[in-house]
């Protein structure tokens, strides 16, 4: 796969929840190895975008394309087995299961089950803390540790594309920084990352490119550095209200 093949594409995607038009003619294209963020305020359709990619919500028109294959209408399980996984908002671990069980669920669809130990070792290398907590209930971990497990759980599927829903949500500032370092590191290992964020400044500081979503429509699409310099965006998202 060459560097510039889009690994994930939205081609004119429209999504409706009943009569409500949530995503409007959305076009997104993410290349392999990129770290792209989708910025937008509350109710702008960010989470719906991720759900559409995962096939938990189906577009009313337009196509979702993964690796050049149109996957519109496929089940979540099919899409996950194509190598797309998500770290949900607020981590949402299976709190009453152990850390190890959480990680194993992450690899639920993998067929190469003999590779799981190696995968787990890889995650322990990234997060040594997780290894110490392996037999503990996920719900008893601290927020930062839960974030590590949530990321680890997604990585257990050995994804090509990692979707992150609001990685900074509900974390202390120091942990947010740590979290973004982790995302950058995962991206450097070759995993394409598509991240949905409200914290525009933080997200753009590590992203290659960004899209800005306003009530279901993409209104800006640029490189991260240009977006950071964009006056309108600064006004809208970086707290510089006039």
């Amino acid at each position, binding site marked *: 796969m060459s560097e510039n093949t889009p690994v994930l594409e939205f081609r004119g995607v429209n999504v409706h929840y009943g009569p409500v038009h949530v995503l409007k003619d959305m076009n997104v294209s993410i290349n392999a190895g990129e770290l792209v963020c989708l910025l937008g305020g509350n109710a702008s359709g960010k989470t719906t975008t991720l759900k559409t990619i*995962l096939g*938990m919500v189906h577009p009313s028109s337009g196509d979702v394309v993964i690796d050049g294959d149109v996957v519109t209408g496929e*089940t*979540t*399980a099919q*899409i*996950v*087995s194509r190598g797309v*996984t*998500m770290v*949900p908002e607020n981590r*949402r671990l*299976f*709190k*009453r*299961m152990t850390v190890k*069980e959480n990680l*194993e*669920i*992450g690899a*639920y*669809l993998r067929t190469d089950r003999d590779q799981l130990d190696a995968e787990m070792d890889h995650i322990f290398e990234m997060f040594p803390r997780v290894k110490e907590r392996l037999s*503990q*209930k996920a*719900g*008893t*971990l*601290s927020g930062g540790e839960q974030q590590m497990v949530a990321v680890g*759980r997604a990585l257990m*599927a050995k994804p090509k594309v990692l979707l992150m829903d609001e990685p900074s949500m509900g974390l202390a500032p120091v942990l947010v920084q740590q979290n973004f370092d982790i995302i950058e590191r995962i991206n450097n290992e070759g995993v394409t990352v598509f991240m949905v964020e409200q914290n525009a400044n933080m997200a753009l500081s590590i992203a290659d490119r960004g899209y800005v979503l306003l009530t279901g429509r993409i209104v800006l699409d640029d490189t991260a550095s240009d977006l950071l310099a964009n006056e309108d965006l600064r006004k809208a998202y970086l707290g510089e209200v006039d």
Partner: protein
Amino acid sequence: MTQSLERSVDVEELPPNPVDWSRVQKWGALGGLTMSFVAAIGMVTALDARIIISPWLTMGFVSVGWIPLVYGSIAGNEPSEQGPARAVEGERELVSGLVAGLLSGLFFALFIVLIDAVDFTDIFGRLGPRLVELLTFGKGLAAASAMWIIGSGLLGLAGGAVSVVPRKVRKALAYGIAGVLLVALMEIIVTDITQGLRIEFLSDWIYALNGGLTNQSALVVGLLSAVLGWRSSDQTLTERRQARMQLDPDVRFRKNAIAIAITILAVIFLPMILGGLTNELLANVGLFVLMGLGLNIVVGSAGLLDLGYVAFFAVGAYLTAVLTSPFSPSWAPELTLNFLSWEGWVILGIVLIAAALAGIFVGTPVVRLRGDYLAIVTLGFGEIIRILFLSDWFAPYFGGAQGITQIPSAALGPVEIRGTSSQAMFYLISVFVGIAIYVAWRLQRSRAGRAWTALREDEDVAEAMGINTAAIKLTAFVTGAMFASMAGMLFAVKVGSVFPNSFKLLVSIVILVIVIVGGMGSIPGVIVGAVVLIGILGGPTQPGLLQEFGEFKLLVYGVILVVMMLKRPEGLWPSLRRQRELHQDEIGQDAWLQLEQGAAEGTDS
């Protein structure tokens, strides 16, 4: 709201713990009401036949006597939720208990006077002279009232004393009382065992001629139990189980293996020395364990509240009836449930396949639903299946309200396993229960088991992890259905006939209560729950050890459920997983945070 706020302020400002009179009044009045209620619904009269200590203490009096004791103890005890327990000084607890008990007794005495004055027998069959006679001990109203007031005052005082005396003493007393009650209530079983072991003289000595313990034997049994309680370990059962989890895996494995071996040996040899009645109880327990294990997968593991579970039990029973009975209305292949020939296996196969199909049929429309909706729809389906069997439409195949009778015995080669031989049935059911336990245990640890747990925990995220939630829910439904259908097959053979009315909603509810009382998601919990509810109290149509409880069974079920939900929501024998969930999550998290902080500080300096 403001009141409770004020009270908690008071507590902080007035260290010597004044008696909380409003609390005492409340519990005293509640006690009197409960006692009157228990008497009014006829428990005292009905349970009077059950003698605990001959001739003066019957289960009837125990059914009211526990009330001032327990309520007195509650009245004197500040609820622990409001903060760390304070040092017990004694005076407050004793006074509160005594006064609450006296109040209860006063209320109850008034109740007796009222019953004596007005004969309610026309409206409430139990509220009449018979009850008055029982409650006044034939000593006249005034004397009896005084006795009740003083008696419940003393019981309340004892209740208040519970939190004052040292833990060891409390435990010994509790063991002593429980021991006497247990031995008295298990009279049938104890007599059975002593006869089986040819040591009848023991039970002859323990039990009075007309039932119940004699004064001497009650004293001995009570003392022995008290000694047992005194010497028993201070650890709670949970602590002990948790300690066991810390053991070396090899040691634990060996201990588990020994426990399992003992259980298997007991299952093999116990029925030989037990009599028909006890074996009958055990066989009923086995049937409900089988169903409970299945529902435990659906409700306990996968978190799907299925209220129509009895439908699958009905499917298994009806198919077995059709396949075996010569009286099957339309098609009667007259097979025999014989597992040494192909016929038995064909029946089992057909029953399991039909149950799986029924599971898919019921499951497919409901797997897309969640929580309450799923419960309501399954409730409907359960009733639909029963009414179908009852309908004229199905009557030509399943006999309608007449059901199907004359279901022949099961067999093992030449050996006949007659439904009326409870011992043989117990062995047959035990084999299936054994297999079911193994399958359920393996399933819990399987990939599907993990997926079920994940589903229960967070359905959305489970879906995002690539778990096909609809398929995995359906798997749970189908697995549960197969367990129930096996129970249905055995039930048909055991009872010898099937009628639509054996498969009422109540059966579903009873199985659910077994799972909840035992501990959701716990396999031993299902067994404990079935023993307590079916073996001791009795099932929907099956009598239990306490046959006199018959008509109050549902009331007692309800009370057990409420008390369990308040005091021990994780069940009698919970899976350790769930126990931690319900009691230690927050504490655990705080502890870890502290540890973390400690570690961080340690590395910083």
